[in-house]
């Protein structure tokens, strides 16, 4: 088993499949009256969050607690970081406290890689800048597999702000490893053509959502990340949602079995309409539940065995 999960590219097909299978067993355990398992008793997991997050932090916390690990939550606000402490000094503090795993979210791409050279424990990337978010890709893949029964050969459209999306990058890597075919859709200003090709040469690019939809098994809508946009990438929010937003009319163009995904948080009315988000094809709430199972699987496989 690998020691760190810094990138979805760290996972080969066998390891990724093992994580998804393990997540399946973890999900089965979630239905029980006693959800707690003794597996990681005595291990310490630090949630090191330099960026705001609700679902990812709560999801990691729930996952670690269900496996009986001790959880220390650290958020940059109200810590010594606001006094100017560097990531390295914070890392050394965690190291001295004996953290077995550090779950890190940071606004700087590559922060988990740097961190893994400073601590002895496992480092799990919970989102770094515009780089990667591997556990999101795992829970997305798990959701697709449990809804559609397979991943190999699936056609997946990732729609919207690919440029700023770590979710998209991790999904491109993981889905390609597992045999799915990814098409990126969005305005040319938000599709980094060369980056997509560098991650996976098989990735297709389209600027026309309507023509892509009838052929897809999965449509993954990305959040328009206005907080990361310094320039104007499209003329207006209204024009964006007219061309790339998923509404009922567009959803009807999808094949009967196709599902609609969104990593959250959603801008309802921007990239997705409320009717679509709340429809039976949408897996958005399921993705949150699956997130806990997928993260339990990652924590178990990284920390459960011999260090």
């Amino acid at each position, binding site marked *: 088993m690998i020691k760190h999960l810094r990138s979805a590219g760290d996972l080969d097909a066998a390891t990724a499949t093992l994580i998804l*299978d393990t997540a399946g*067993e973890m999900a089965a355990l979630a239905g*029980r009256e*006693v959800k707690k398992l003794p597996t990681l008793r005595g291990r310490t997991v630090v949630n090191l969050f330099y960026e705001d997050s609700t679902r990812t932090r709560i999801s990691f916390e729930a996952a670690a607690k269900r*496996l009986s690990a001790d959880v220390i939550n650290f958020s940059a606000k109200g810590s010594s970081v606001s006094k100017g402490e560097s990531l390295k000094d914070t890392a050394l503090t965690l190291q001295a406290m004996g953290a077995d795993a550090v779950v890190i979210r940071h606004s700087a791409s590559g922060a988990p890689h740097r961190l893994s050279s400073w601590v002895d424990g496992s480092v799990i990337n919970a989102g770094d800048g515009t780089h990667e978010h591997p556990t999101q890709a795992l829970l997305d893949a798990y959701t697709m597999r449990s809804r559609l029964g397979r991943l190999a050969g699936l056609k997946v459209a990732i729609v919207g702000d690919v440029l700023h999306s770590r979710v998209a990058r991790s999904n491109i890597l993981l889905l390609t490893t597992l045999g799915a075919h990814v098409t990126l859709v969005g305005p040319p200003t938000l599709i980094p053509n060369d980056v997509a090709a560098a991650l996976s040469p098989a990735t297709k690019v389209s600027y026309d959502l309507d023509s892509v939809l009838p052929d897809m098994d999965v449509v993954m809508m990305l959040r328009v990340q206005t907080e990361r946009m310094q320039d104007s990438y499209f003329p207006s929010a209204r024009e964006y949602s007219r061309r790339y937003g998923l509404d009922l009319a567009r959803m009807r163009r999808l094949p009967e079995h196709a599902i609609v995904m969104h990593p959250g948080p959603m801008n309802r009315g921007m990239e997705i309409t409320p009717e679509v988000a709340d429809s039976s094809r949408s897996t958005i709430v399921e993705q949150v539940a699956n997130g806990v199972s997928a993260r339990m699987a990652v924590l178990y496989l990284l920390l459960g065995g011999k*260090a």
Partner: protein
Amino acid sequence: MASPRADTTSKIILGESDLHRVVDRIAHQILEKTSGATGTVLLGIPTRGVPLAQRLAARIHAFEDIDVPVGSLDITLYRDDLRLHATRALGKTELPGGGIDGRRVILVDDVLFSGRTVRAALDALNDVGRPSSVQLAVLVDRGHRELPIRADYVGKNIPTSPAESVRVSLTEVDGLDEVKLTGAEK
């Protein structure tokens, strides 16, 4: 999975027909000791406990036309030796419909050795329900217990040295039925 039969340091303890007779006997003992297997659930411990539990249920059905619910109970997440080995893949836990609350649970495993697997199984059981009682059925008891645990139904007692290993093969998993003792001194 099965090592070649030509291995000089290995000895077949139970052949195919012996193994079938032993399973039949355990099925009879269960019927006898539980007065007709009423309110009883068989839970196999993966990997080989699961097909064994299914076979026991099938034999009980053949003998007395009684349907005993069968399930599986994976104990990996409850093991006390997780940190001594590389991470293990998880097995399936599937409880029969109706659960185990208030029922007599018979845990089924292939080999009883240190007793640590059974200890983990008791912990796991505790988290999935509250059976009225718990019993243990094993195909082979090889001794060397490290915990105060004993089996209620034993297919065969095999005296071993700690250095030896007992290998149970079942058609469902390994493609043949036999029990083999390997590493024995000649």
